[in-house]
């Protein structure tokens, strides 16, 4: 039997797009039916990781998702590994099997799965070879060839900025404010000073907004945190760190370490995840997400786009 992650990827690839609610229900259903014991929020975490791995894109505001077009791309500094991401229908799996029979070196690799999580789809990797015509292989797999998503997207990562003006919360609305000392939102009696807030608006949506110098501005959860850090009000931040890999001869390749309290926005996360094609390692004890095999140039581009100084650790 297929693993639960592959079953889910097959499903979303066949239906191609839909409402986020239905997707979350489908993930919960698979977990329940296949007796996977989950912790609260498992479906949401699955969606987040599926976005990072480049399988789907999610419009959170309108509660809509779509499966991504299939892409074959290179994992940087990986000793020649290509990864196939995006949509994976039954027909695509047939093409993959045919390619595998035709002596293309295909591997199906499981992402490590934490206790309480719904497994992710297996990552399909292809060993590169000097004789391999990438465009042709991609075509045979029904995918398009992108030379190296991680390093290419690094060049066009957006620089953080506010998302336009926003209305202040209505009087009496309960508000939460982000507490950087505790790395989470804390309920506050009302709007108290500049900062990152979230609340439930009259239309039942939950916006993230920043109050600075008397002006309310729209933002998102992850961007809001980095915008606040960049404002300098919280001292010198060191939430994005990079550690050189110990191996000799692999200069400028290392681990990108990000605190849980300051998660990377979606595109930065995808750039870092598509250095291995696997989920980051989450460390509960350290409270960090560790993205491996990240070139220093990408780490710098990510921190630059988030207005952060990259901290190099030895």
């Amino acid at each position, binding site marked *: 039997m297929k693993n639960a992650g592959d079953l889910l990827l097959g499903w979303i690839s066949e239906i191609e797009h839909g409402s986020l609610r239905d997707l979350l229900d489908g993930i919960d259903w698979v977990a329940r039916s296949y007796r996977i014991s989950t912790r609260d929020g498992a479906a949401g975490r699955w969606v987040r990781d599926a976005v990072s791995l480049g399988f789907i894109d999610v419009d959170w505001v309108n509660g809509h998702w*779509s499966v991504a077009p299939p892409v074959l791309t290179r994992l940087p500094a990986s000793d020649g590994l290509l990864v196939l991401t995006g949509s994976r229908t039954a027909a695509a799996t047939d093409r993959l099997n045919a390619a595998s029979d035709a002596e293309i070196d295909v591997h199906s690799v499981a992402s490590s799965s934490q206790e309480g999580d719904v497994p992710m789809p297996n990552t399909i990797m292809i060993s590169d*070879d000097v004789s391999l015509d990438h465009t042709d292989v991609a075509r045979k797999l029904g995918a398009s060839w992108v030379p190296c998503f991680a390093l290419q997207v690094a060049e066009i990562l957006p620089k953080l900025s506010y998302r336009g003006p926003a209305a202040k919360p209505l009087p009496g609305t309960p508000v939460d404010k982000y507490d950087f000392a505790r790395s989470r939102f804390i309920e506050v009696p009302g709007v108290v000073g500049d900062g990152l807030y979230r609340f439930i608006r009259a239309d039942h949506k939950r916006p993230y907004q920043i109050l600075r110098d008397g002006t309310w501005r729209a933002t998102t959860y992850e961007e809001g945190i980095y915008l606040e850090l960049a404002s300098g009000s919280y001292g010198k931040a060191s939430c994005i760190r990079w550690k050189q890999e110990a191996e000799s001869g692999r200069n400028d390749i290392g681990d990108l370490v990000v605190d849980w309290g300051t998660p990377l926005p979606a595109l930065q996360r995808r750039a870092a995840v598509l250095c291995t094609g696997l989920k980051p390692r989450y460390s509960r004890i350290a409270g960090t997400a560790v993205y491996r*095999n990240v070139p220093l140039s990408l780490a710098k581009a990510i921190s630059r786009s988030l207005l952060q100084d990259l901290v190099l650790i030895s």
Partner: protein
Amino acid sequence: MVHGWAAYRQWQNALAAEFFGPDQAGLPVVFYVDAEVLRQIEARYNLAVSLPETIRSLLRWGTSSRLFGAFHAHAATHSSHDSPPPSLPVLALSVVAATEMATEGLIRNTNYYTPLTRLLCDGKAPAAKRAIVLSSFPQVADLWRRLDQWLRRTQGAFGVSTISAKDSPHRELIGLPLSQALVRRSDRMLLTQFFHDIELSPALAAKPDYLLRQLRIWADSRVRKFSRRFVAALESEVDRPLVTELVARLAESWDGKALDPATGHRMLKLVLQFTSRPPEFRWAAEVVKGVESGEIESSDGRTICFHQDESPFYIGIDQLPFSSSLLVDGFRVRGRDERHVNLAFNYSSERIVVFRKDPYLGCWVSQESTTTHDEHLILVHPEDDADVRKILKEASPHMRPVVIEHVVRALPQGWTLYSNVRFDDPAALSRALSVNTQASARLRPSPVGRPKLIGGLPVAKHLGRGFYLQGGAPDLLLATHGEFSREVSVALDGHKQEPPFAATGFPIPLALLELSSEKHEISADGHLLNFTLVERLTDVPVKTGTVGFPVVAQASSQGSQVSADNVAVTLTTVQSAIRGASGVGAVPYLEPCLVQRGALASAYISFQGEVMEIVEPKRPAWRDELVGVVSYYFEAEIPEESGWIVQRFARRVTARAVGRALPDVSAIREAPELDQWIDLVLMVTRPDNPSLWKAYRTVAEELRA
């Protein structure tokens, strides 16, 4: 003072206006009249003579079987197409008699004729008079049939008839007034809520027996809200056919609106939202068809506006004031919709309130009943606390009562809030609910009226219902019929399930059966359910990437700069965007050079005589986890110009061409690493492009010479 026919005509007009007015057009009309309704009509229409008195003055006691002859004759001569037959007063009295029948025990004919005779004889019912009433009653029955015919002839312009005499022959006649006396106005309003809750469709309305089964389950927890007579009729073997038909007729002509029993206004159910941080209750109301917006007069004098958007709940209802006493007493408030039609917002108090997380409101919302496998909060009145605690302990071992001070303060005095309530174990829940109490009835998972398929991984919704991806077969939910652990005979594709499944309100996963991709049929309780498993649908992506991160060109000091947005949106047109790992193709990228691992030494030599040593790095540590994925190469950065990768192995020296340029002899001659360059070229035993290599070898030999 008016007497005789003058009084009769006044009653006729009043009853016609009350029950058969033009506003009744198309709606089912139940001519329900009891003593209380009579008093209200008397007052509203200023009627000086009571109805029984009016009728009494026109009776013909001198005959043996023509007591109602005068009415019969009057109706025959005064009928018109545009107004109800002039028999309403006498028919109304026959209904009043039916409402005064004993409600308990076997209903016998005498139960009916005694109260009728009493009404006709000013409170007494001597046997002789009763005999005359009995033998004359066919005249009244005839008047009933004429009213029924008139309602049918006028095509519902004055209401849709619910008059019925479907019954055993000996009760046929009294069945006519009885059909109008079973359902009070308030019962009818409650029935509209029932229709609303079961999402009544024309198909369902056509199945009266099924409807009644559902109704008995639904009414079970609302016994105190229906009239005693209606509840008794639901339980009585004798009355059931009549009730069934009546409910079916009401269902057939139901207009989709739930009505408030007290006011008759369109009802919108208020539900409770609960947030734990801060602990707070607020009102909410689910969106109903046909009401887009409106306003509510709040008890504190404010006017609260509400409207609809994509959410399944109205926006603005949470502005209604809340106090914990409303939880205990219930809450009703009036409003109007956008067309100024009256609305009633209603919360019926409950001693056990079940909450479930609502995905749209993002908080806890009160529910009709519990569901399996979902987390609940249960709020409990002190008197039910012991029962509830016992059940939860047994069925939901993880539950814990919430005793956090600040949460308790938001609750009514003495009430308890239980959190972490989840029913995952059918056997444990079955044991816990085996004792029959108010609490066990309330905590039972939502009754399932008929078997159905839920969950699964549905595909191809545009092709119709019932298609699922292989491996994603839906769950089977069997009808509980208000019981728990009922054994149901189920067959899948003709194969009977042994031992039989128990209907517990828990879904039975069919996905684990590894069914083949074809059409499957389940029969359960005489219902047939079909679903089709498909292995594949789309061959070519059609609607992938409808969401993505837009990529836009932005003017900057260094010219135009391309940048992606950090928030994915639903893309409306053919927009340049990052979808998954696509959309970065235009960004320039220098491909690395793959160099084979395991060589004793490796170098790059260029077509112009440069030499660059290549050091083989260790294998990337993270790749150790990729079991079976061997790395034969490493990546090297080499200059972006033509040359060769030369590698020395134990028994061979290889050269792999990078680019196709011929050697540039003059540049090579000047190169600082000339000797090394020549050594390397002359060492090679296996070039991958022998014809191009020949040119290099020739140059090297000439230079060495």
